């Protein structure tokens, strides 16, 4: 009896210790230093909140989640190194990238080859999901974002004559191609195209060009650190036409930099941050507490990446990456923080409506929602 009891106790102890040891590791890459450190910091905080929330809700299959974070500096070489480290040293079976395209694109083939389920939270380069069937993306690709902008300008704003200002990175180029491809179809005449580098903060010549174009509307891609000065300088130069910005305008810092000039700027695929939703409200409050500033689209996308992955694990009832991958691919109508995800297409690209925000009284507020499935359709190959 004593032996049996001891044996049982021993077995239990082994089980408990194994459970304690075998936390589910989620590999996480984010640009904590370097040019993209702003988004990296937001990503990391969002990831930590997600892990805390998931563990507070009981983890998955009796196990807790453990976050393994590396700095990829938003650079491809560094992302390859950290992805190999996650696969080789840490032995993760699930990974999330809270980083830019260059890094996600370099890491994706490594995770694919190792059979690691990989979600890029907001990296928009098409190659990320083309790496293979283990790779997913939770943000809309550049081309449908650009198409949505063309549709919005023609259909909602009823404007026809546009100047286009684009940043010269993967995201800017891809979004621009989507816009230009659909502009003509929507009856929009593109008077002029301008291109700028991500390091640029001085747009005098572009402002002069836009003044000469005298467009009815301006479509621009950019991050807050370029979009803020760009919008301020356009308005200071006397340009009055409405400005439609790409998703990456969506940052409180954009409004801070552009000040009054930000008023009335539309943001395609913005983050509807004041929506009544208990999960969103909890996240916003927690993020504000930890970061000292309110969350942005990037943070919401990273949080939802963890959420949707954990949901797939629970529905699978197993931590086998192959099974989790298939369950994740079949996800339908999942409530993310920014939008309800309709599902993934064949390439594991998101199918979901697009929110358009407008800046009003120094805040991003919901303006309209684009639901046209054809406009928003992600590429199938």
């Amino acid at each position: 009896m004593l032996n049996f009891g001891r044996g049982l106790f021993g077995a239990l102890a082994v089980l408990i210790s194994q459970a304690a040891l075998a936390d589910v590791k989620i590999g996480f890459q984010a640009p904590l230093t370097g040019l993209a450190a702003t988004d990296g910091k937001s990503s990391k905080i969002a990831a930590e909140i997600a892990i805390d929330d998931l563990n507070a809700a009981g983890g998955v299959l009796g196990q807790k989640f453990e976050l393994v974070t590396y700095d990829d500096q938003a650079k491809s070489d560094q992302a390859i190194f950290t992805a190999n480290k996650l696969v080789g040293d840490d032995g993760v079976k699930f990974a999330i990238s809270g980083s830019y395209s260059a890094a996600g694109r370099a890491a994706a083939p490594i995770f694919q080859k190792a059979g690691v389920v990989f979600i890029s939270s907001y990296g928009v380069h098409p190659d990320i999901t083309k790496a293979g069937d283990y790779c997913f993306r939770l943000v809309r690709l550049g081309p449908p974002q650009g198409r949505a902008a063309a549709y919005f300008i023609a259909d909602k704003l009823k404007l026809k004559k546009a100047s286009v200002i684009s940043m010269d990175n993967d995201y800017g180029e891809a979004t621009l191609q989507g816009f230009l491809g659909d502009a003509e179809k929507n009856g929009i005449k593109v008077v002029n195209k301008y291109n700028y580098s991500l390091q640029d903060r001085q747009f005098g010549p572009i402002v002069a060009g836009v003044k000469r174009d005298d467009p009815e509307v301006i479509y621009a891609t950019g991050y807050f650190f370029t979009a803020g000065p760009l919008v301020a300088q356009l308005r200071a130069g006397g340009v009055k036409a409405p400005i439609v910005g790409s998703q990456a305008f969506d940052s409180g810092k954009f409004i801070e930099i552009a000040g009054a000039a930000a008023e009335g700027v539309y943001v395609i695929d913005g983050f509807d941050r004041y929506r009544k939703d208990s999960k969103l409200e909890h996240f916003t409050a927690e993020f504000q507490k930890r970061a000292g500033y309110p969350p942005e689209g990037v943070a919401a996308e990273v949080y939802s990446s963890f959420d949707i992955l954990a949901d797939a694990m629970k529905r699978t009832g197993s931590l086998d990456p192959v099974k989790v991958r298939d369950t994740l691919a079949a996800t339908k109508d999942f409530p993310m923080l920014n939008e309800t995800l309709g599902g993934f297409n064949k390439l594991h690209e998101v199918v979901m409506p697009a929110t358009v925000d407008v800046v009003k009284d120094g805040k991003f507020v919901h303006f309209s929602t684009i639901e046209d499935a054809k406009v928003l359709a992600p590429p199938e190959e």
Partner: protein
Amino acid sequence: MFYVDLAISGIVFGCMYALMAVGLTLVYGMLRILHIAHAAVFALGAYVTVLVANASGSILIGFIAALIATPLCGVAIYRLLYQPLLHYRPDVPMIASIGLLVLMQDGFRILFGEQGVTFLKNPLAIETVDIAGITLNLAQIAVLIVTIIIFLALHLFTTQTRIGVAWRATVSNPRIAASFGVDAIRVRYLNFAIGSALAGVAGGLIALLNNFVDPTIGYVVSYKALAIIVLGGLGSVRGTLIASLFLGVIESYGTIFIGSYLNRDAIAFLALILILMARPQGFTGARTA
């Protein structure tokens, strides 16, 4: 009007480059060091201007604070980083300088945040003046006026005062100047102080124009200012001024006419390569190392 608008944009770029690059070319002329960390001094000027202006409520006080902080920083860089390394090959202090730039950039990020800082109140970037159909914002006007005043003052200083003449002599030929009894060490300190103050003012002005300072603000200027001093003929102040304005205007027109193929930085470097192919000694053909 369009072409005038473009020219003004270009001249504003040129003024910023000139304020940045003159300090760099002076250090090179005197010590044969490529002072890469000058870009960090520029960033420091931008940060100090914004932070002090926000704390005091006056942009002018912000500029005065930058004018105090940046020369101190420049002199400290000379004394603590370059002076101990002067007897090594010139690439040794240059590498140390790159290291300092990276360190200071990350320092700004850690101290003042990844998201950068903005003026709480910056009417200069918003308010505009119409002069004969040309719209200029007050920040652009401030850049033009401040740059003209600074270079006039610098000209008077280097031609009318004893220390100024000694400085000029040392930059153009350190050995002969020393043989005439010029205190080379004192002149070096002066050199770093003035060069850094110019970069500090440039930083503050850029902050005004952009209404935004982030840790990487010095990044572009660091390599573009190097290109400008090469174009100007290393060590030549006059050449640097010409090269700055030239590059600014080329960039401005280039953005419009070839801007959908190349961005502003690419245009600048393309122009640089073409000019150096034709004139390897730069605009003024001053001595090279």
